[in-house]
């Protein structure tokens, strides 16, 4: 289960990297870009998720109950920030606003969300069964 969570986490991260790359290349991080995703949101979600992933890799190498729970707790604000960004992104797609995030491929956004939710559940199950 821990390895499955690692795989879904890595896939989630890949989708996240694609979106971050597109957002930055369209200037989303610059003031006045018109992006509805503030740099504060993006650059809190990204490092927290990455730190969580590093903790999970350590857990897979050297399992410890405490580490599994820490990784789960780190994932909670990551998920909250992710949901917030998703809620702010949705109207830009409907309205076709032309903001840096409005042209994110829908499959990548949905895939990122579903894989992230799966990762969260797998991490919780791993921590509970530890």
């Amino acid at each position, binding site marked *: 289960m821990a390895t499955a969570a690692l795989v879904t986490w890595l896939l989630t991260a890949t989708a996240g990297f694609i979106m971050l790359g597109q957002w930055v290349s369209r200037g989303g*991080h610059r003031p006045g870009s018109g992006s509805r995703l503030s740099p504060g949101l993006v650059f809190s979600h990204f490092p927290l998720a990455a730190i969580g992933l590093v903790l999970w890799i350590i857990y897979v190498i050297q399992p410890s109950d405490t580490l599994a729970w820490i990784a789960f707790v780190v994932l909670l604000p990551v998920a909250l920030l992710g949901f917030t960004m998703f809620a702010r992104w949705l109207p830009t797609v409907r309205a076709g606003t032309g903001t840096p995030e409005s042209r994110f491929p829908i499959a990548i956004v949905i895939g990122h969300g579903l894989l992230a939710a799966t990762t969260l559940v797998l991490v919780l199950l791993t921590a509970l069964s530890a």
Partner: protein
Amino acid sequence: MEARDQAKRPITRLAGPYGHPLHPALVVVPIGAWVASLVFDVASHLARSPGFLVEGSRWLIGIGVVGALVAAMIGFLDLLAIPTGTRAFRVALLHMSLNLAATATYAVSVAIREAPLDRPVAIGPLILSAAALAMVGVAGILGGQLVFRYGVRVADEFTQAEGYHTTTAKENA
């Protein structure tokens, strides 16, 4: 903004402020740990009781892998600062790919090490570690090229000139 100037600016302060990038500071952890682990691997063939070297090498590889992932996270932010379609971006992609491949090779090298600590490190994992370190070396050359040739995340020349302003006796008074 000119493409060259764009690569000098961080996309977020997480990557370190202008003229002071974090990535080059973080990479010393995996490089140091991995060089030391290879020294330990070789030394395990020379020492009379190699147990501490065999175990130490595993810890060093682990520290290196975790350090590399943290450095990669910040390095990725600098990659995004480079305009796509440029030579600098292609060099940066190759730099990243080589380092990620080296990290994965180290993970395999540590995974295939057998449990007994009373014998020197086997030739298989030792060769894997040496190959991974060679990859890190080549990636390091590319990283140097990005900084010293293409000036990625290096402050512009006007900012650099501040460090060469000589104060006269009158100004000091």
